[in-house]
């Protein structure tokens, strides 16, 4: 087990009805580590991220962020189910970017980026705008700050979504197939932003992706998920050069054939 991980999944299980979606999964992610999570459709990748974002509860097992439990709390030596205040405090450490952007359509790019900092972090409007301006600049959209989502391309919307999540100053960023809904010509601009984030910021990043090329050059480590378990994990180079598991090899063959 890793010393002092940023994120720890410990024997985590998630069911939908009788269907086991995540099955006793263990995973440690180090501070500032970039982990790529790959696997076939339905293997549990989104479920994993949603539990860490506290959008879905675990059915059993524990999740820790910076050594603190998300899935329960300790009060006077007693273990209690997490209350809302606990969940919200822990959730503040994590940010998530969705496949379908999920920007707020009635707010401009700037509005999207300042709403939560003002309402949750208690920033003044001026401070929130200052921070959001920096972030929109970083994702290359300073000139589009007053545009509504419907006036932006998919790639631009996704970059606003990244800025919006960063505005909450998370320590861990989750990316769930953030380029899957994009036109091919805009995929690059989003991946470039994610790459720069990784290089220039102290961020732990977990990236679910179907883009093996990106996983290989971006990630420190690649985890292959199969039926809710991590079937194989290795440093990115080893993983693609020399996959050990027969399932991993089959998956990589299938993905490479597909494109």
């Amino acid at each position, binding site marked *: 087990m890793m010393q002092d991980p940023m994120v720890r999944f410990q024997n985590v299980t998630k069911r939908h009805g009788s269907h086991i979606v995540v099955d006793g999964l263990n995973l440690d992610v180090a501070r500032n580590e970039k982990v790529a999570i790959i696997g076939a459709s339905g293997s549990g990748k989104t479920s994993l991220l949603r539990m860490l*974002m*506290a*959008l879905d509860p675990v059915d059993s097992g524990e999740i820790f962020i910076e050594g603190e439990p998300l899935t329960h709390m300790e009060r006077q030596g007693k273990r209690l189910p997490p209350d*809302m205040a606990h969940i*919200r405090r822990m*959730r*503040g450490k994590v*940010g*998530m970017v*969705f496949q*379908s952007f*999920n*920007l*707020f*359509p*009635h707010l401009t790019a700037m509005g999207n980026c300042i*709403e*939560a900092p003002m*309402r*949750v972090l208690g920033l003044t409007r001026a401070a929130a705008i200052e921070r959001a301006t920096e972030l929109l600049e970083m994702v290359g959209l300073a000139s589009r700050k007053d545009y*509504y989502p*419907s*006036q932006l391309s998919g790639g631009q919307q996704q970059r606003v979504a990244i800025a*919006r*999540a960063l505005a*909450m100053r998370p320590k861990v960023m989750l990316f769930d197939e953030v380029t899957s809904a994009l036109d091919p010509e805009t995929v690059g601009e989003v991946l470039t932003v994610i790459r720069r984030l990784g290089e220039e910021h102290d961020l732990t990043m977990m990236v679910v992706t179907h883009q093996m090329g990106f996983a290989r050059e971006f990630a420190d480590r690649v985890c292959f998920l199969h039926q809710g378990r991590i079937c194989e994990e290795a440093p990115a180079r080893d993983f693609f050069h020399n996959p050990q598991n027969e399932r991993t090899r089959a998956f990589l063959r299938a993905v490479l054939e597909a494109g």
Partner: protein
Amino acid sequence: MIWDWAFAIEILPRLGQAAIVTVQATVMGFALAATLGLGLTLARIAWPRTALPISVGVELVRSTPLLIQIFVLYFVGPEIGLVLDALTAGTLAIGVHYAAYCSEVYRAGFEAVPRSQWEAAEALNLNRGTALMRIILPQAIPPVIPALGNYLVALFKETPLLSAIAVLELMQTAKIIGSESFRYTEPITLVGLFFLGMSLISAALIRLVEARITQGVRR
């Protein structure tokens, strides 16, 4: 002679007075309907425990005639210490009745906002109340404004029911003029024309608003 112009012009000022009462009942009644309806829908979302009692209340109000509700409020109210003048009681009854319909309209609006909007708000750590008021509400309302407008017109056309408790609105005034002069043609026709004109104008306004909203969505 079927239509007496002189008589029609003579009764116009009285009908004008009554029209003010009709418009007053419409505006106040609809203001109540729109806000109470929204309040009910917000309560239902913010506190799921209130959903069942609210549904029952809404169903009850929608399943009984407005006229009976007006009577209950005006004639039975005093028995339990609720003494209201006719206009207030009538406006209140109309407002509550249409609040039930409006709350269903609002509900449809809220349900049409994708779940992913709630989740995006949650992932940004917005609490449920803030998410509801700042993220979901502004997306839920514009699409239902035309439907609300239709209820405004429907409510307006039901205000003659207030004549049943002798509110001096248009219909009641027309009836009084008729019984005094034994001429019903002019007052009733004029009242009908007034409703027709106002309804046509409102319908046009609603279409205008609707067009602006669709434009806004495409923005």
